[in-house]
Structures are given as C-alpha cells and as structure tokens.
C-alpha cells in the first residue's frame, strides 16, 4: 500500500505497465505540442506582446503624455480630454489613482505604439469587451503595438486592485472608421 514501504525492495527495477507507459508518452508529447505552440504563435499568430519596456520616472511619463494631450486633444468628455493622435504614432495612457488618462480616439486598422505606465500604484489595463489584459507598473513603461480592427466604443477597466477607488477606475478608447 501507499502507506507502507514498497513490498519489492528493489522497486526501481520493476517493469512499468504498458498502459502507464503509453500514457506517459502521450502526455509528454502533448506537453511538447503545447510548448511549441507558443513559439509557433510568435511567428504565425497576430497576438503577441512585444516585450518592449523601459524604466521611466512618473514625472517623465507624465510629461510625455501631456505633450501628446496638448497637441492632439479634439474635445472634452466628462472633464476627460479626448485625444486623436495621428495614425502610426506613439500614444500614451496614464494609469493613476483612479483614472485612465486621457480618452484616446484611434482609427480602425491603423497601428499605434501604445505606451503604458502608472504614476503611483500598480494597475491593470483591461480593455473591454475585447478582453485584452496587461499589467501596468509604476516606474516601468511598456510599449504595445496595437491595431484596432473593429470600430466602436471600448471600456478600460482596472483589474489590479489599487485601493478603495479601484472599482471606479474606468477609461475609454474610441475606434473610428
């Protein structure tokens, strides 16, 4: 039994039952399939993170974002600036207690370099309803190249707990034709 020492002193020389051996081979092979699937997707798939990231101070990130906001704001909505940066440009999204700042307006099927960073605590960028989720750290700037492929209004929920106002932290991205 499993609660007594093995009856066969030399248990490591016992043969393995065929059914067990077959399962080990199948399971191992499946593991390899799953392993190489991730590598394959880096070549063939369209959804991969770039892993481009930099250290950055909150002040510096704030300045860069403000420069974009100053240049490309087209209107205001609930006191949030709505920014329409040119297609293909570097765009900035600030995470802070408890806002995603500003509202971005992007063009469908255009590519943008989205810079994400937090000015205070950790936050979670959760784009809905597409359900893309990226962690946002203070002191680190992550650059994700995005290509919105459907027009519409998208919500940004914070999905990393960031204190008592966490559930009020909602942002917005517009994708226009």
């Amino acid at each position, binding site marked *: 039994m499993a609660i007594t020492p093995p009856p066969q002193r030399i248990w490591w020389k016992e043969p393995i*039952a065929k059914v067990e051996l077959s399962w080990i081979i199948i399971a191992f092979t499946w593991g390899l399939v799953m392993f190489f699937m991730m590598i394959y997707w880096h070549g063939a798939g369209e959804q991969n993170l770039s892993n481009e990231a930099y250290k950055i101070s909150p002040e510096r990130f704030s300045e860069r974002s403000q420069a974009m906001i100053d240049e490309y704001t087209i209107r205001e909505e609930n006191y949030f600036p709505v920014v329409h940066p040119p297609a293909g440009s570097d765009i900035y999204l600030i995470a802070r207690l408890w806002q995603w700042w500003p509202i971005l307006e992007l063009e469908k099927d255009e590519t943008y370099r989205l810079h994400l960073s937090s000015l205070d605590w950790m936050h979670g960028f959760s784009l809905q309803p597409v359900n893309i989720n990226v962690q946002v750290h203070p002191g680190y700037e992550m650059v994700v190249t995005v290509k919105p492929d459907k027009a519409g209004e998208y919500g940004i929920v914070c999905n990393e707990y960031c204190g008592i106002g966490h559930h009020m932290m909602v942002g917005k991205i517009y994708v226009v034709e």
Partner: protein
Amino acid sequence: MAKTTEFRTCPTTGLKVDLTAEKLIKANAVVAVVFLAIGGLFGLLVALTRWPAVHFLPADWFYLALTAHGFDVLLVWIIFFEIAVLYFASSVLLGCRLAAPRWAWTGFALMLVGAVVTNIVVLQGQSSVMFTSYVPMKAEPGFYLGIILFAVGALIGCFVFFGTLVVARQERTYEGSVPLVTFGAITAAIIAVFTIASGAIILVPTLLWSVGLVSHIDPLVYKTIWWAMGHSSQQINVAAHVAVWYAIAAMVLGARPISEKVSRMAFLMYILFLQLASAHHMLVEPGFSSEWKIFNTSYAMYLAVLGSMIHGMTVPGSIEAAQRARGLTKGLFEWLRKAPWGNPAFAGMFMSLVFFGFIGGISGVVMGTEQINLIMHNTLYVPGHFHGTVVAGTTLAFMAITYLLVPLIFRRELMFRKLARWQPYLFGIGVAGISVFMMGAGTLGVSRRHWDMTFADAQLPFDYPSAAFLMMGLNGMFAILAALGGVLFIVVVVGSVFFGRKLGVDEKPSYPEMPPAAAAVGEHGSAGTLKIPGTVMLVGIFFVAFVLYYFVNWKYLSEVWPLS
C-alpha cells in the same frame, strides 16, 4: 529523549503512534479547521458581495474581507493542515518518535501568533492590501510581521519533519524505502523550504520598508519574488493533496500504487520543475523576454504538468485495480459504481481528483500559456482556476482525510454520519460551481478583486455583458452551497472531536469503513496482469477535453485586436 517516548499501537492499522506526535497532529489540525471556518466565512461574504443582486458588503469591508479570506484559507488553513500531514507521514507512517518535539511546539506557537497578528492587523482596516500586498501599496508593519512569524514557524515544522525521517532511518523503524505517501510529503516539504525562503527574501525587506528603514522596493522585483512564494506554496498543496489521495485510496480500499517507480518519478518532477511557476503571474508584465516566459511558464516543457497527468492515471488506476481484485470486474465501470460513495473519505477524495484535473488543472495550463494569458490575466478566470485547484482539489482532499484522522488520531467515533455522507458532495459541487462560473465571468472580462461590476460610481460609464451578471449570480448561489458544505464539515468534525464517543484502547472505529491492513489488495506491480480499462476511458475523456479546450482558447485569442 528516545527512552521517554511513549507509543500506542493503532488497532485498525497496526501502526505505532508516538503520543507526542499525535498531540501535535491534533493541535495543528484543530487550529487549521478553526482558520478554515474564519476564512470560509470571509469567502462567503465576498461571494455575496460579488452577487450583483445582493451586493452585501460596503466597498471598504469588501476589500478587507477579501484580504482576510486569501490569507486565512490560502495560507493559514492549508499550511497548518500540511504540518499535521507532515507529522503523520513521518512519525506515524514510519512508526518512529517525532524529532525535537519542543521545536515542533515552538513552530506551532509561532505560526499561531503570526496568524493571529496578521488577522488583527487586517481587521483594524488599514491593511486591506490583498493577500499579495503588491508594493508600493503599503500595509501596517504588523501585516508583514505576522506572515513572517507564520512562515518561520512553518519552516521549523518542515525541519522537524526532516529530522524525524533521519530518526526513523537511524533507529531502523522501517525496512527498505519510505512509503509512497511519505515520499509525497517529502516532496511537499522540500518545495515548502524553497517557498518560505523566497517569502523571506521579499517580505523581510518589505517589512523594513513599511517601518521606514528601506526607502524603495521595486514593484516588478517584488512581484516576481513574491510569486516564487505565492505560486510555489500552491505546489506544496498539490504535492500534499496527491499524497493524501494515495493515502486515502490505500486506507479505504487497500489500493497499491500501480508502480512505485512511476508514482515516485511523478513526485520528483514536482521538485524539479514546479518552482518555475512564478512566471504564470508575469506573462503580461513589462521587462521579461518571451524566451523567459515560455520556458518558465511551461515548467520547462510541461514536465511538472506531466507529473500531475501521471498521478491522474495512477491514482484512479490503483483504485480500479484494487476493486477488480475484489471481484468487481463487470464492464468498464462496475469498480467505480460500486465504490464506497457513502464513505465521505472516499467520496471527497475522488471528487477532489476529478475536479482538480478537469477544472483546476486544464484551466491552469491554458491560462499559463504565454499568449492566451492576455485574454485572462487578472480577470475572474484566475480565481476560478485556483478555486478549482486549491479548494476543490486541496481543501476537499484534506477534508476527506480528516474523516479518517478523527477516528484514528483523535480516537473518537464520528458523529452525525448522515451529514458526513452528504458533506463532500455539497462542498464539492458548490466549489466546482464557484470555479466554473468565475471562469465564465472572467472569459466575459469581469475583473477580479472588484467591488462593483456595475461601475455605478465611475466617472465614465461602462457595462459588462448581461451574461456576466448571470454568471456572478450563479457564483453566489454555488458559494452558498459550498458554505453549507463547509458548515457541515465544521459541525461534524468539531462535534466528533469534542463530543464523539471515546474509543477504547483496542477498539476499532465502526465508521468510516476501513479494511484491516492485511486485506490490502495483492501485487499489481506485475506489468503483465494489470487491467484498468475504466481508468483508461476516464483518462481518455480527460485528454480529449484538455485538447479541445486548449485550442478553443487559441481561437478566442485569434479574434482579439492584433498586438505585437
């Protein structure tokens, strides 16, 4: 010391039991169950708050309750119970005295003090930082201090366990190799040492930071090392509850492992690879390369997953072989149909096995795939997954073996047997529901650790799809079911431990049924005669489900915005 050790002989199993070890097992198990009750209550409050129609707690209390829930059940309940399992698997199964009982009591006291301190600090309300306490969010110093004390106590427990193994070897209390269950416990203890060391590396500086002696803790470094503790500690659970599966199969059905070699190799895979799992939490963070993510998140080509998949066949396989040897040979599943489903130890164990594999296991691998993590990270899918592993897997298995510990270690007859019969089903199905519906809500985008999914107070409006609200309602209902199962467990166990009829010195308990050790079903190490077609069928169903679910999620991923 050895001369003064007192033993008794167990009338059911014939094992020699050191009375000091027995007391320590009792103390650790009782405290574990108390914290299960406290943490479970917090969990129910959390689930009722996340049920949109009920929305029970105000926001500050919700975040407080969620912090306490995570700490009390994920850490305190499970580790206290694991220390009891370690002492059982060493001192009792090897029939030797426990090494350094004074140290064992010291460890116990430290763990208890630490758990109480952290709970008090959390209840004071200034430390609602969640179990993970990601910096730069700051808790009161006592929050970290309590966890550190608890961890030091647990570390002492691990070393008492290792010491006991040495004692058993030196005093030759067993022949040949240690039993498989002890081997599994060794696996758990080795992973525990790694886990606790990682915890110390990051929590000690964090404590100093919270009192002002250290100026800055890097959030990315914190998160990476914290999860070397946080995720690895869940691998202690896996190793421990797999050992418990083997123990229950042996004690209730006299089952033998199909092959000692294969089962031990599978445990070894855990020791070698499970610690890489910190990466599961870093797949969408800045600053890691894809090579690092792929290698680590897959435990080096899924070798630890391979370990679990092997146990997933060998545990039911050993049960089937034992049942067939008893003559239950009709068709594919007579052995399973006529299994002792009325015995809560068996029912809990088998459900733990099935839910851990189908719900917790598959979802964990899928979510831990580098790119698929993008559509799941930090949604409710994550708690859905780990309630499948840690609650439906570990907690249910620990509850199941408690039904054997009460008569064998506490020496009391089990009370309320009808309730005990139903308890594993109520709890198991409740938790399975919680896991599945949280995973469903997560797939629809619902955030974890979030007080208000209607965003009533937000500056900008946003609505989750209505199906998500349905999921959270169902989650609440199944949480009530699981809570009822939890209450039944506490009633049966606490009732029996304090008020159950005391068993005489040589008296065997009448319930749950355990065959005498001699009735252990004979050899099935011999490769030629082994027949387990039912298990092959079950494993086949599991494999098909796994493959389908895996590729369905790649399909989902391919539909979101292109990213690079």
